[in-house]
């Protein structure tokens, strides 16, 4: 709108200190999320006597953290105003390749895991390259096609077979504890921390935000937009493969049809975490809380044996809530 600050400030110096406003500090999405998380825990505690107990809270993380690894790179992608709906298929393909390499090609399990991560990264890389090479097409179209394609390749490799017989130690990923803490939880914390640092404390993260706000201006400012995009999509593929490892470990085997519709859960968690698909907005801590909210809500309601159709509705409502509330706030605030 019309700018009124034409009258020149006589001062010639600028402040370099970040202005601090208590108001802004407290009106952050993350506080609301934290409040919801506490609400969810309180609700579950009141509903089920089994919920609030260290073992229960701890073991629950083993149930819902597998797909959480993909939420972080998905958050990066969404900040850049793109989306990747092929992650579920990437999970399936990389785990199927892992099982095949181990069982049919006779490689060691360590090799198989490395192959799995490699395949995931390649899937992501292909997505990224297609997206930057064919700028006329949106990421939705390209990842929709690769979603079908990757799943298709998984079917071609394994047909109707399940493949498993992994060595004993492989089960550790999905079921193991270190000093009484689930391995998956430890890795989740580490990965969340690393992604948080990457997004908020590095030049790479700054570039992601820049691209999300204005990719053209970013390019003109010397940001290698294509490279950042390819790297982030590759990361998404890589983290999908991490999920594949955990999933295969928990199930002791894999099939071409695992992880179907994971992409929707992942996108929903990122959106709940305050990542706007309109680009440029959101912080990693929000997604971490959102993962815990969705995970504990599903787990807790599961403990009181809510039918799964009700869970569908609850998750849908939660997602709507997450996107509507900030808008209501804003319109209210403007008045």
């Amino acid at each position, binding site marked *: 709108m019309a700018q009124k600050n034409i009258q020149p400030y006589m001062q010639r110096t600028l402040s370099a200190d970040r202005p601090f406003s208590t108001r802004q500090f407290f*009106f952050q999405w993350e506080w*609301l999320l934290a*409040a*919801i998380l506490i*609400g969810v825990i309180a*609700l579950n505690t009141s*509903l*089920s*006597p*089994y919920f609030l107990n260290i*073992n*229960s809270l701890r*073991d*629950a993380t*083993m*149930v*819902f953290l597998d797909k959480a690894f993909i939420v972080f790179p998905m958050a990066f992608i969404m900040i850049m105003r793109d989306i990747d709906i092929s992650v579920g298929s990437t999970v399936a393909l990389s785990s199927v390749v892992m099982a095949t390499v181990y069982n049919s090609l006779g490689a060691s399990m360590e090799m198989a895991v490395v192959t799995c991560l490699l395949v995931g990264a390649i899937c992501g890389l292909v997505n990224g390259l297609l997206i930057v090479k064919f700028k006329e097409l949106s990421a939705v179209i390209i990842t929709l096609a690769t979603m079908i394609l990757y799943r298709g390749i998984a079917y071609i490799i394994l047909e*109707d*077979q*399940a493949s*498993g017989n992994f060595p004993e130690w492989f*089960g550790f990923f*999905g*079921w193991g504890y270190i000093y009484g803490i689930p391995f998956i939880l430890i890795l989740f914390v580490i990965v969340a921390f690393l992604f948080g640092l990457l997004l908020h404390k590095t030049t790479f993260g700054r570039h992601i935000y820049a691209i999300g706000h204005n990719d053209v201006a970013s390019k003109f400012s010397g940001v290698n937009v294509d490279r950042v995009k390819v790297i982030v999509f590759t990361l998404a593929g890589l983290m999908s493969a991490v999920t594949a490892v955990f999933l295969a470990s*928990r*199930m*002791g*085997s*894999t*099939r*071409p*049809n*695992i*992880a*179907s*519709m994971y992409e929707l859960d992942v996108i929903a968690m990122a959106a709940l975490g305050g990542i706007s698909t309109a680009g440029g907005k959101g912080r990693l801590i929000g997604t971490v809380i959102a993962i815990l909210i969705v995970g504990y*809500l599903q*787990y807790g*309601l*599961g*403990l*009181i*044996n*809510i*039918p*799964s*159709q*009700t*869970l*569908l509705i*609850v998750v849908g*409502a*939660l997602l709507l*809530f997450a996107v*509507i*509330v900030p808008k*209501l*706030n804003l319109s*209210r*605030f403007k008045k």
Partner: protein
Amino acid sequence: MKKYWTLVLSLVLVFSILSACSQGSPGGNASNGADGDSTSKNDGPKKYAFIFKNTGNPYGEKMMEGFEEAINEIGGEAILRAPDQPTAEGQIQIIEQLITQQVDSIVISGNDPDALQPALTKAMDAGIEVISVDSAVNTDSRVTHVNQADPEAIGRIQIEAVSEMIGGKGQIAVLSATSQATNQNLWIEYMQKELEKPEYKDIELVKVAYGDDLRDKSVSETEALLKTYPDLKAIIAPTTVGIAAAGKVLTDKGLGGKIALTGLGLPSEMASYIESGVSPWMYLWNPIDVGYSSGFTAAALVEGDMEGKAGDTFEAGRLGEKAVVEDGDGTQVMLGEPFKFDKENIGEWKDVY
């Protein structure tokens, strides 16, 4: 102002979830797990859980009905669960939740024979009796299995039926569920074995098609079968969606009587096609009875009446005494032959399940 609205909306959300929960519970389980102050495992009624493949499946609902009936007779508490998608991942989540709830037994119809092993082993380590039903899990992840019918018999009986319908001669095709459905794959295997017998030498199995238990795909696959094999004489569809879709296609194309249809399907879904003669007869067991006997099997194990070893016997309510027999390296409880549904009896069964 902003804060106020945030607060209000948070409250609205919490209430909506609460109401969703209270609304949802009665449909899902007999009595709420949180009702009793069952802090220790031995207090109150024993808890028996049943996990089906996916929600919204009438076959599973009927099995759950039978299971619940059995548990009510015993005086336990039944917990009925199913994931919204037919995946092993969803079932693993539910198993974890049931372990936390310290149930006494889990009866499961597995979406995958092997993938559930780690979760079910964990459950058994926690002292929970694990029994599979309908779709078996591997022998290491269960105490015993309640088998609706001998797969060999299921395979044999369908080939016998087809042979009778087409006069022992001609091309037949199979329309199955997904290419990964273990039950169906096992049955088809036995069908193929049966076909090797000399009396069926004139019957040729031309194709196994997969309709993925989706209506639209099953219809396309059936149509493709009809076109690719103009001399096709019969279709065997050992899955409800498949047989009903095939019945619909044959009805719409006026091929009833020209191409025979048999297989396994719910009487309610197949009533129209059996009454019209498109499918002269088909088979199925009674899912209510399957669920019912699985309930008693679980109870017998939990109460320590038996250990699930071959040779053990137990009382299964209205179904009388049942015996545990060997099944490979594990054991199972076998429930008679599949039941034949034809024009005569379909009318009385279509409203039951």
